[in-house]
């Protein structure tokens, strides 16, 4: 038995032995009881989204049986029926003929308490309370704090899934799946009035979430002899019941706004996520060309569509009256054609080596029509349709094509040792991008072996180098604005010409990992792994210049028997990112400042994450008492150090911290051959500090009314007592 086998077996043993799962094989059990949640509510796991200081019921059903003279089998499972996140599933079928699966799942997310003066929560028309005192900034909004009402930010998903598999004659099989998922709740959305030059004013809105996704996925499979074949079709429809989001402007009119934009007549309107569709036809073929040679070919052709009717340039009637250049079209008629081709030739010659040759073609061809839109800035100004207006904007239907060609091979180099080598070249061609083409070459080396039966060593090194065509930083700016406006902009750029976006920039990457596995005895497994990713953007004068991530993981597991297991892990990760910027203003000094190194700044990000966990399972008193304990802790400290050149100043920022601790204790006391008493306890403590949120109230900023959420800082407990019986 080699090290990998031992390790897998140990982890499987750990995964399988839980005090709260059935001790006996098979199905036929009911768990019921009651529980109590103490504290402000948890953010993670099964209790997330559960109301605070609240009792809950425990109900879990696991049942199965046979029908149709014993040929058919059904399985029913209900989990966490008394909690906010719960699931029920029913599966039935005749093996070798058909299978039907029905599942309903509710997933409640974490809740954050927030505050807003707006009324009409849950609707898409948010109004200010009667007697609202408007002002140009929050400083003079005397009614802001008294008007604040609390609400919960968060969302809940409800998913229903129906699946059907039918085994057809002649080695064919049909799999069909229908999914209906709704998501409801409230999320934040910045409601902005104003345009530029210091005129924007914002109230962060409680945006209602009420979206529905329906999916239909069917595939016909063929598998016989040396050939497998698949043809499938997928349809995904997203519908948003909110087609607009309106709000009343809480700010009084300011200089630069049209007088009608301020309170009480001023309103804003935004476009929530539009309805969209996705269709995809896929074909797959796997052919054994020779006993040791296999070909995989996969083709997927898809289409993304979006054609929701546009909202007007402005919701403000006075501003609508100013429109001289109407919308160029009533809706986008957006369309992206997707094409994917994957080819892989893989061989496993008997001489102890293998090789793969692969090619990937992935295209997102954006066929959305282009047009010129003369926008109205933030529902606050009349339409400026002058030929040199900055409001004349042309949409850029961004698309790309990625091609990847690679080969990898591996061979045994004596005993259990193995050497793997790989090479890959990729090329991405983009439209409307600062870089029309990027190319990346990658080499990979892997060395692995078991010098001893109880020892495993693995080393992997990957080096890659990305370059590409000439970087033209203002390409999108030039393509997206009116020529007359571009002529009026000194330097004809928006972002600094020396900026290199990290997704496009030249990059040298070196990744390495070293793993040491020790299994000194059949019951023990130890693993020490170290990983490192070092990115250098040496040719980027501005933007991300360096990114280093290192991690160290230690794992230990022990499984004396099915009745006694132990596992522990500890990990530390270091993240370091450096970026350079240059601050510059507009107006007469724009070009001078844009080239002035004295206005440079640098931000160094340093994050350190420590994670540890300990778990134990023990069966006592001849298996009548089973105990499980799990403890996990994740602790983060993050610093951003900003330094500047002579013309600028910077002050230090506090360290942000977060510490999440979870403790689970589960006891199962067997009362009889078919019944047991279960006691479960969970403690979740989350301490965090974040200068961007803590003490930042709705009225802290002058021009933004925030929701006033604080960093999570709580300790919550859940206790559940239940009875389990088998039938």
């Amino acid at each position, binding site marked *: 038995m080699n090290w990998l086998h031992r390790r897998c077996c140990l982890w499987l043993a*750990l995964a399988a032995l839980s005090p709260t799962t059935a001790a006996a094989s098979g199905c036929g059990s009911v768990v019921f009881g009651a529980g109590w949640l103490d504290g402000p509510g948890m953010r993670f796991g099964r209790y997330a989204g559960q109301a605070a200081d609240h009792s809950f019921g425990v109900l879990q059903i696991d049942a199965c049986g046979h029908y149709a003279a014993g040929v058919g089998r059904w399985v029913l499972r209900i989990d966490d029926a008394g909690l906010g996140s719960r699931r029920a599933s029913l599966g039935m079928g005749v093996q070798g003929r058909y299978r039907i699966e029905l599942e309903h799942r509710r997933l409640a997310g974490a809740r954050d308490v927030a505050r807003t003066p707006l009324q009409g929560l849950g609707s898409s028309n948010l109004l200010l309370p009667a007697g609202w005192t408007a002002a140009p900034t929050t400083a003079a909004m005397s009614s802001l704090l008294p008007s604040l009402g609390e609400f919960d930010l968060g969302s809940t998903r409800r998913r229903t899934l129906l699946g059907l598999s039918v085994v057809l004659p002649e080695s064919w099989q049909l799999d069909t799946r229908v999914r209906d998922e709704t998501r409801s709740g409230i999320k934040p959305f910045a409601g902005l009035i104003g345009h530029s030059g210091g005129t924007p004013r*914002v109230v962060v809105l409680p945006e209602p979430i009420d979206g529905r996704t329906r999916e239909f996925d069917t595939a016909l499979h063929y598998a016989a002899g040396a050939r497998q074949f698949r043809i499938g079709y997928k349809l995904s429809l997203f519908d948003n019941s909110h087609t607009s989001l309106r709000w009343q402007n809480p700010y009084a009119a300011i200089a630069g706004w049209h007088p009608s934009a301020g309170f009480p007549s001023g309103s*804003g309107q935004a476009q929530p996520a539009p309805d969209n569709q996705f269709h995809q036809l896929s074909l797959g073929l796997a052919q054994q060309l020779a006993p040791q040679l296999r070909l995989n070919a996969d083709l997927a052709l898809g289409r993304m569509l979006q054609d929701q009717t546009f909202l007007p340039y402005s919701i403000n009637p006075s501003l609508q009256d100013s429109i001289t250049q109407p919308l160029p079209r009533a809706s986008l008629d957006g369309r992206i054609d997707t094409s994917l081709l994957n080819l892989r030739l893989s061989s496993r010659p008997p001489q102890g080596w293998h090789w793969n040759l692969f090619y990937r073609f992935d295209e997102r061809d954006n066929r959305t029509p282009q047009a010129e839109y003369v926008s109205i800035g933030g529902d606050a100004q009349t339409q400026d349709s002058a030929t040199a207006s900055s409001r004349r904007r042309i949409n850029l239907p961004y698309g790309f094509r990625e091609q990847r060609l690679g080969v990898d091979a591996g061979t045994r180099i004596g005993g259990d040792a193995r050497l793997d080598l790989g090479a890959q070249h990729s090329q991405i061609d983009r439209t409307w991008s600062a870089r029309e083409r990027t190319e990346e070459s990658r080499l990979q080396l892997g060395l692995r072996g078991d010098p001893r039966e109880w020892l495993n060593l693995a080393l992997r090194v990957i080096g890659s180098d990305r370059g590409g065509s000439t970087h033209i930083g203002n390409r999108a700016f030039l393509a997206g604005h009116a020529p007359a406006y571009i002529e009026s902009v000194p330097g004809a750029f928006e972002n600094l010409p020396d900026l290199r976006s990290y*997704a496009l920039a030249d990059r040298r990457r070196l990744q390495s990992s070293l793993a040491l596995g020790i299994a000194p005895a059949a019951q023990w497994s130890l693993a020490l792994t170290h990983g490192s990713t070092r990115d250098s953007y040496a040719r980027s004068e501005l933007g991300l210049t360096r990114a280093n991530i290192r991690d160290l993981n230690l794992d230990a597991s022990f499984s004396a028997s099915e009745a006694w297991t132990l596992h522990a892990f500890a990990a530390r990760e270091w993240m370091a990112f450096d970026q350079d910027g240059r601050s510059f203003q507009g107006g007469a000094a724009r070009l001078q400042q844009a080239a002035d190194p004295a206005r440079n700044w640098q931000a160094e990000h340093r994050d350190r994450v420590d994670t540890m966990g300990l778990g134990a399972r023990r069966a006592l008193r001849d298996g009548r008492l089973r105990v499980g304990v799990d403890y996990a802790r994740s602790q983060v400290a993050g610093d951003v150090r900003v330094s500047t050149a002579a013309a600028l100043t910077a002050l230090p920022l506090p360290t942000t911290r977060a510490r999440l601790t979870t403790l689970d204790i589960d006891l199962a006391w067997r009362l009889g051959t078919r019944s047991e008493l279960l006691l479960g306890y969970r403690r979740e403590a989350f301490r965090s500090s974040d200068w961007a949120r803590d003490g930042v109230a709705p009225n802290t900023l002058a021009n933004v009314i925030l929701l006033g959420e604080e960093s999570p800082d709580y300790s919550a407990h859940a206790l559940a007592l239940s009875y389990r019986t088998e039938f």
Partner: protein
Amino acid sequence: MLGTLVSMKIASLRPWVCVFVALLSGHATGAVASAPGTALPESVENCLLCHDDDATQALLAGPHASTADSRTGFAEHGCGNCHGNSEAHMRRPPRGEPRAAPDHVFGPAATTSAADQNMQCTGCHRGTLGMHWQGSPHEAEGLTCVGCHRVHTATDTMHDAESQSAACFGCHPRTRAETLRASSHPLRDGQMACSDCHAVHGSVGPGLLRAATLNESCYECHAELRGPFLWEHPPAREDCSNCHRPHGSNHAPLLTQRAPWLCQQCHLAQFHPSTALSGSGLPGPSLPSGSQSLLGRNCMNCHPQVHGSNHPSGAGQTR
């Protein structure tokens, strides 16, 4: 004593529970949990003479031992369908010598290569799960099917999301650490499974994703971000991982780095986008004060539509 009383009380409720469950199913015709009596192949009876243990009994209750399904081969070959004819194993060994092993042994006691072991499984499962296995990263790593799956059980633990995650984290400890961070997908308590996004037996997508691309994977649950939009945000259109770490991050929502500096790595325009944001933007003793590019939702205080906007006046991702 109390436990016994409770147990007796519950026992009296068992028939009602059975009826309740049967009604829910609408198809139950017999006893709820009792398997129908089906005759075992003769060859299996022979194996059971020595292997009449819990594991073997559990196998008989599982799908691999279905005699009604001709695809399993169990009716014809019995245990030999996976373990081979094992003629040497079936013969009584010479006195003093150990019994020969079966032709195919799986897991810790295996004497054959991972590929040989897996061939027994992919022979039947090639149509769906095994189609992309050869040449996949897990195959290249030398993983065996039984390294993750338990065949000699009535129910494979890999069908349970929590057990599945625990098994995956055994080889992917960094991913486990990421899922324990403050901003993470809900993998705890099995609310999501690794297999919700990953096709671990091989796939056409990168990183063993079920979907053809990373973004298509994300759109499965976040279809509202799919677009296309009038005003696209190119990095979001191309690759969600340009800004997000899918398994967990220190920076909500799953951001690779802290904003506003993350945004400033691609946006250095005049005035506020290029400003050196530092502690000087923190709130002072008098209100209102502080930088609206730094506090609260930072850049998203004004630009909430970072995944794309479809408002005709939303070119700046503001509507």
